Structure formats: structure tokens, C-alpha cells
């Protein structure tokens, strides 16, 4: 292990702006563009938004501070960080679970990136503006064209790999410095256009009017909790990985916590204003979910004055959002495997991207497989990974059973930062976030058991098996004396 650490020289972010854009770009993904509008719509609009904002400040921001802090404290990827604070053995298996969930996530995110690329291409060709264009037929014929979908999946993985081959500073940082501001401008332009359409205010009214009856429903609160926790990328290992490349004088609380969570949700708000007014102006179904982006909006652009231009701007922005997330999700594995194996970074990028491409083939081949992967890993995998990361920070980095995180807050979190973080942070990270995530997982299981019994049981069993194999496997591999046995008794 010592030799391995000596071999691994770590890069650092070149600038504060680069780090902030990388963090917020990583957290803003396809889900922000369509999921927040959709979830807000079905949960009663304004009331849901108010609950969501409250929970964002109370839970997501402290959680992101904690995860970023773990990375800066250890200067390691996911496995190295957990090993450093919790010791070798079973706990390291927890980090392996996070890594496996990331691989699974990227395996179906890459085909989605490919879809968006295809829509960017057709927006440039002006396909959506052609007379008689049918969005549903276009979508169905594309997703049924296996070779084409696999080709776009391959291009998406290739583009991610090319950027990662250049490293943190010359690859990720260099590209997100341009892509994230471009996404912001693109969404802002589409939002202004959308809000000035005749009938657009109906969309604003639908989204922002608080409907009191929804505030009393547990489902609204659980939906807001899930959105606040998981749309900010908490527990994916991204904040930890990007935090590990921070410089000693960089702050965590202001940039890694507050700005990342609010910047990410600010884009969500912009997406609300870009999508919903247009959807209402053209009399479409506001609760259409993911198909809103790929089917409904192409119809909207086809009908809109200047729609050719707005379609290009929107789908480019959408691609930038998804691409910066794809870079971050893949980087979690690249950083960790570069540290944990004998391979150099470039070799790891090529091998890891190849593995993601291969594992992603079934999702590229069939939308049903992709939806199943999302159901299993998006619904169960991510919350469980977030719970495990928060347990490591709250209960292993905080090294005593009382308010053990107090020393972390004082020595690490409040170091070199302009934002004072009080004792409330330790209480929330140790005692509030883990049970809240556990509650959400249990709620998801119960509610999905009724509607999707087979997939739910299968998903729970699969995630349980991944945890069991990872924890037991690492406990055996990293048991005291395992190295000596492997090396012939330490000779």
C-alpha cells in the first residue's frame, strides 16, 4: 500500500472557478432538466417547492459539505477515503458498493447521453421543423434502431473518455469552465422565450401556486426529501472525489456545500421556467416525465417561431448538463482505480470506459433494460450508497459515539472558509441525515412493493447481495495478515 501511495501523484484544481463549475456541472444532470419540473408538477407546485427549499438548506447542504470534506481531508478516492477513516476490512466494502453503483449508473447514463447527442444532431439538421414531423414516431424509430443507439452510446462513452484522458485540470476543469456557463446561457435564453409565449403564465401558475392539500400528504414530503437529497448528487462519491483534488487553502463549506447545492437547484428552477410555460402554451401534458424532454418538447420547438434556433440551444444545453455529470460519475471510478491498482491513469480511463461501454450495451439495446437499471440503481442503489457514505462521515470520521463530528467541524470544516458552520452541522450529519435516508429507502420499498412487486423484490435482493459480497469480500481481502499470506508469509 505504501509503495502504491508513493506512486500516485495527485493533481489539484487549477482555480476556484474551475472547481465550482466542475462541482455544480457534475450535479446538474438530465434529472434536473426534466425531473424537477415533473416532480414539482405532480406534488402540488408551490407548496412542494417551499418544502423542497427548506429541506435543501436543512439536509442537502450539510450533507454535501460532509462528503466534500471527506475528500479534502483524505486526498483519496472513494475506497482510499473510507479505508483511511474506517480502517481496512469490511468498511472498505462500503466504498466498493458506492463504486459498483456508480458503474451501474454510468452504464445507463451513457446511452441517455447518446440519445441527447442524437437530438442535438437532428436539431441542427432541422428535423423537428419539417412538415409532418411526428415526435413519437421519431423517438420510437430511433430507440428501435439498435445499431444507431449503440453507435451514439459508443460516441458518448468515447467523448467522456477523451476528456478524462487529459486529467483533472487539463481535461475536466478546462471543459467545464466553458460548458457550464454555456448551459446557463442556453437555459436562460429558452426560459425567456418560453415565458413570452402566449398562455405561458398558466405554466407559471401551475408550478408556483401553493396547493395546501398537498402539504399535508406524506408523499409530498418524501418526494421533496428524495429530490433534495438525490438531485444534489449527495452520496454518489462525486463530491468526495472532486473534493479530494482541492488545495489545502480551499474552503469546503461555501463552495462544496452551499454553492454546489444552490447552483444545482438554481438550474432546476431555470429548467422549470424553460419547460413548463412552453408546455402549457402548447397545451401538452405537464406530468409526462422523461418523455417531456424527448417527445413533447420537440413538438413545442416545431410549433414555435424561431423553433429551429431554440431547439439547438436547448438540446446543446441539455447535452452539456448531462455530459458534465457523465464526466464526474466516470471520474469517481477512474480516481479510485488509479489509486487502488497498478495501472496508470490513462490505462484506467481506457479500461474503465471500455467496461462502462460493455455493461451499458444492454441498456443501449433496450429502453426496457435501461428503465429497469434506473429503477434498481436510481431508486435503491443511489439512496443506499448515500446512506453508506453519510454513515462513514458521521460515524467513522466522527470517532466517538457522542457528538463525534465536533472536532471535524472545528478543525476541518471551518478551516480557511468564509462561512462559519455551527454545531447544528454535526447534529444533522450524524443524527438526522442517516435516519432520513433510511426512511426514504423503506418508504420506496413499501410504495413500490404494491405497484412493481417483482422488480422491487429483485432490486432489493440485488442491492443487498452487492452490499454483502462487497463487505465480506473486502473483510477477507483486507484481513490482518492477508498481504503476508499472499506474499508467502511475508518473506
Amino acid at each position, binding site marked *: 500500500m505504501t509503495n502504491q501511495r508513493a506512486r500516485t501523484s495527485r493533481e489539484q484544481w487549477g482555480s476556484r472557478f474551475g472547481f465550482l463549475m466542475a462541482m455544480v456541472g457534475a450535479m446538474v444532470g438530465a434529472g434536473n432538466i426534466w425531473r424537477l419540473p415533473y416532480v414539482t408538477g405532480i406534488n402540488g*407546485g408551490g407548496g412542494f417547492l417551499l418544502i423542497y427549499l427548506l429541506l435543501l438548506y436543512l439536509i442537502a447542504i450539510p450533507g454535501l459539505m460532509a462528503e466534500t470534506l471527506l475528500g479534502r481531508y483524505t486526498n483519496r478516492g472513494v475506497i482510499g477515503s473510507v479505508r483511511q477513516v474506517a480502517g481496512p476490512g469490511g468498511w472498505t466494502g462500503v466504498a466498493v458498493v458506492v463504486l459498483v453503483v456508480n458503474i451501474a449508473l454510468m452504464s445507463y447514463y451513457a446511452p441517455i447521453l447518446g440519445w441527447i447527442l442524437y437530438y442535438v444532431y437532428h436539431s441542427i439538421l432541422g428535423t423537428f421543423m419539417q412538415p409532418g414531423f411526428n415526435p413519437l414516431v421519431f423517438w420510437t424509430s430511433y430507440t428501435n434502431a439498435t445499431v444507431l443507439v449503440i453507435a451514439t452510446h459508443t460516441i458518448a462513452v468515447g467523448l467522456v473518455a477523451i476528456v478524462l484522458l487529459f486529467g483533472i485540470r487539463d481535461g475536466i476543469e478546462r471543459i467545464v469552465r466553458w460548458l457550464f456557463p454555456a448551459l446557463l446561457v442556453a437555459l436562460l435564453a429558452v426560459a425567456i422565450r418560453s415565458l413570452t409565449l402566449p398562455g405561458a403564465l398558466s405554466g407559471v401558475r401551475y408550478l408556483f401556486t401553493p396547493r395546501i392539500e398537498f402539504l399535508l400528504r406524506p408523499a409530498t414530503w418524501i418526494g421533496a426529501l428524495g429530490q433534495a437529497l438525490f438531485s444534489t448528487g449527495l452520496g454518489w462519491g462525486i463530491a468526495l472525489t472532486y473534493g479530494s483534488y482541492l488545495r489545502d*487553502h480551499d474552503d469546503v463549506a461555501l463552495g462544496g456545500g452551499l454553492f454546489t447545492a444552490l447552483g444545482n437547484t438554481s438550474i432546476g*428552477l431555470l429548467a422549470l421556467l424553460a419547460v413548463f410555460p412552453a408546455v402549457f402554451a402548447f397545451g401538452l401534458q405537464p406530468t409526462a416525465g422523461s418523455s417531456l424532454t424527448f417527445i413533447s418538447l420537440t413538438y413545442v420547438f416545431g410549433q414555435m417561431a424561431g423553433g429551429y434556433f431554440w431547439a439547438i440551444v436547448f438540446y446543446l444545453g441539455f447535452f452539456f448538463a448531462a455530459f458534465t455529470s457523465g464526466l464526474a460519475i466516470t471520474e469517481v471510478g477512474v480516481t479510485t482505480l488509479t489509486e487502488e491498482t497498478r495501472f496508470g491513469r490513462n490505462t484506467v480511463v481506457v479500461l474503465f470506459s471500455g467496461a462502462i461501454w460493455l455493461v451499458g450495451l444492454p441498456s443501449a439495446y433496450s429502453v426496457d433494460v435501461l428503465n429497469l437499471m434506473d429503477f434498481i440503481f436510481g431508486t435503491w442503489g443511489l439512496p443506499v450508497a448515500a446512506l453508506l457514505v453519510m454513515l462513514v462521515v458521521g460515524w467513522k470520521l466522527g470517532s466517538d459515539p457522542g457528538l463525534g463530528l465536533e472536532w471535524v467541524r*472545528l*478543525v476541518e470544516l471551518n478551516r480557511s472558509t468564509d462561512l462559519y458552520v455551527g454545531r447544528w452541522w454535526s447534529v444533522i450529519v450524524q443524527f438526522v441525515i442517516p435516519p432520513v435516508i433510511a426512511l426514504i429507502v423503506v418508504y420506496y420499498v413499501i410504495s413500490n412493493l404494491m405497484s412493481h412487486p417483482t422488480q422491487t423484490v429483485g432490486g432489493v435482493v440485488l442491492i443487498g447481495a452487492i452490499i454483502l459480497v462487497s463487505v465480506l469480500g473486502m473483510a477477507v481481502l483486507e484481513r490482518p495478515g492477508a498481504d503476508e499470506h499472499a506474499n508467502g508469509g511475508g518473506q
Partner: protein
Amino acid sequence: MVLPASTIAVLLIAMVALWGVGGWALVRSLGDEERKLELLERQETFDSYSPRVMSELRAWIESHPDHPRVDDATTAYNDCVDRLGRIEETFYDWDETTIDDLERL
């Protein structure tokens, strides 16, 4: 169509809580970075903690003498005291009297 007052209120709250505070955090974070780099260039280091945090850190160290991390905390505290003794310009809002009263633990 005229929007109801409650709709406008929620929209404004969301805009202030997200765009307002998020924009403030971005500007402040970038401003801090510029200041830190200036200080690092001029005096090679800067104070790592604010007066408030140093006071809390000292209280925590004194009330947790047997904590497994008390040595780390003491090192961090003493390091900041040393830095404050070496530098001419501080990052945080320290006054001379408070700095003079600080002692290593």
C-alpha cells in the same frame, strides 16, 4: 392572466433562496480565493481560522483532553497561533489585541 399573490410570493422566495443566495456564494467564494492567493503570494501563508472558531476550538480541546483526536485539534490550534504571529495581514477579521492574547496550548 394575472398571477395570484401566493404564486408570485413562492416564485420570489425560490428566486431569492436559489439564484440570490447561490449567486452570493459564488461571488464570495471567488472573492475569497483572490484574497487568499494575494496573501499567499505576499506572505506565503494566512490565518486558517476565524476568532470565533479559534475560541470554540480552544474550548473543545480543554473540555476533551482524552479525545482520540485532541492532538490533531491542538496541532491545528497552535499552527494558527504561529501563523498569526508571523503574518502582517490576516484573512479573517482579527484585531491586534486578540492576537496578542492568544497562547499556544
